[in-house]
């Protein structure tokens, strides 16, 4: 990704707005853009979701492969999660091997899902020591107007929850829904104009400082945290956004559950 010039004017403008407790698009500090979630939208994927948050649009697709279990875990399958932000998603994204930014995106989403234990890898075993399912979750951005993290994480869990194990095609029994027992949700906060805001858009990302990503599971258990970019934050600031994240995650969890139930 080309490193954008951040005009001092943009930073100054965002700081002025922050002083009045405003945002450039009129949202409140912890208000998100409209969220749209669509599942089963990709015919060739075994599970899929499309998320739109403002002008940010991403897809998640789940595919399955047969793998040989690792020798130290002969009765477990695997989960792989990768994120790609291809140049289609914005003029600052360049072609080539995955950038550190897109690797970070994939890994942070991966950790939230993996550590929540929502997928029991022992369920993925077909024949111990010989055959197991590998679940591959691919995250694909179409339009980047900021906060790809939350969009990816939301699409990821929705795609997994809508996935079917294609056992018939691999001659490994009958097709069955992928068992996903929990709904980990990520909420991201960016420091803009000296205070944290929720669901930053591209302008706020460009003119802002550090960001913090929080993934909460059911019962508000914390499953992954990540602080990104340069910046210093206090314990009190963190406590405030953690508190916000709890209520916001619950809302988004309901959105996922409703989409899956309505299937």
């Amino acid at each position, binding site marked *: 990704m080309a490193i954008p010039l951040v005009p001092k004017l943009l930073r100054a403008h965002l700081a002025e707005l922050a002083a009045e407790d405003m945002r450039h698009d009129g949202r409140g500090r912890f208000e998100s853009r409209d969220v749209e979630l669509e599942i089963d939208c*990709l*015919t*060739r*994927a075994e599970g*899929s979701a499309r998320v739109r948050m403002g*002008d940010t*649009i991403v*897809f998640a*697709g*789940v*595919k399955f*492969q047969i793998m040989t279990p690792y020798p130290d875990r002969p009765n477990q399958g695997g989960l792989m999660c*990768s994120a*790609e932000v*291809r*140049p*289609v*998603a*914005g*003029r600052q994204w360049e*072609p080539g*091997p*995955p950038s550190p930014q897109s690797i970070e995106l994939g890994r942070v989403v991966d950790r939230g899902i993996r550590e929540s234990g929502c997928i029991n890898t022992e369920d993925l075993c077909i024949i111990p020591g010989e055959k197991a399912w590998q679940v*591959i979750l*691919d995250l*694909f951005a*179409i*339009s*980047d*107007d900021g906060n790809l993290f939350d969009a990816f994480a939301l699409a990821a869990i929705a795609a997994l929850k809508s996935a079917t194990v294609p056992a018939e*095609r691999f001659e490994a029994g009958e097709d069955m829904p992928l068992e996903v027992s929990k709904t980990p949700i990520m909420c991201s906060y960016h420091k803009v104009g000296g205070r944290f805001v929720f669901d930053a858009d*591209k302008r706020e990302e460009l003119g802002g400082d550090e960001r913090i990503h929080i993934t909460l599971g059911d019962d508000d258990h914390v499953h992954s945290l990540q602080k990104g970019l340069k910046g210093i934050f206090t314990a009190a600031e963190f406590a405030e956004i953690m508190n916000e994240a709890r209520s916001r995650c619950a809302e988004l969890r309901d959105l996922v559950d409703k989409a899956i139930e309505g299937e």
Partner: protein
Amino acid sequence: MGGYGDVQCIDENGIRLDGRKIDEVRPMSIEVGVVPVADGSARMKWGLNDVIAAVYGPMEAHPRKIQRQDRAVLDVRYNMAPFSTTDRIRPGFNRRSREISKVTAEALESVVLTELYPRSKIRVEIEIICAEAGTRCAGITAASVALAHAGIPMTDLVVSVASGKVHDIVVCDLNKEEDNYGEADLPMGILPNSGELVFLQMDGDLSPDQFQEAWDYNMEAAKIVHKHMVEALKRGEA
């Protein structure tokens, strides 16, 4: 071309596996503005194909060695998303996508008035998010709609369609089974207003008569696809 195999692609009444007649194109829809951050974009669903094309530019061409003093360069990338096919595709460029990117760029450069933008580049990104058969055709078609949506001056749109042969019968707009088990594939890029061509490939085996038949099917199909393209652009303007 995989030979006959055991798959019967056309029944005795001349009806194909997806219920079409031999001269019928798959259902399609086109929508513009699907990538809000891009200067122009289009999504084309054609049969099971689902293709997104986005255009950025004209912008400064870098690295400088790709600059042309008298015209803009088209930087075209065709890519298949990892989940776009039955078996997952490992991300990254391969020889197939490089070739398709190249022929697509050359087809589009034939209609874009590149001389209006010296030393600049126009980025065209084609992402296949769901593939059936004829993704390159859907890609070229969607890309030309996205270019028009971005307001890039062009002499014409490019409509791309493929016809071919299966069980020795020439059929219009191949589907997946016909592409896999058929005997010939003839994709063309047609300028709908003049009937001229900017893109042509073929593989397989066609007699002179069959070749003419496939050619004529493509010309007819192009008119149908063109109508969808124009309507999508008009809707996008409203």
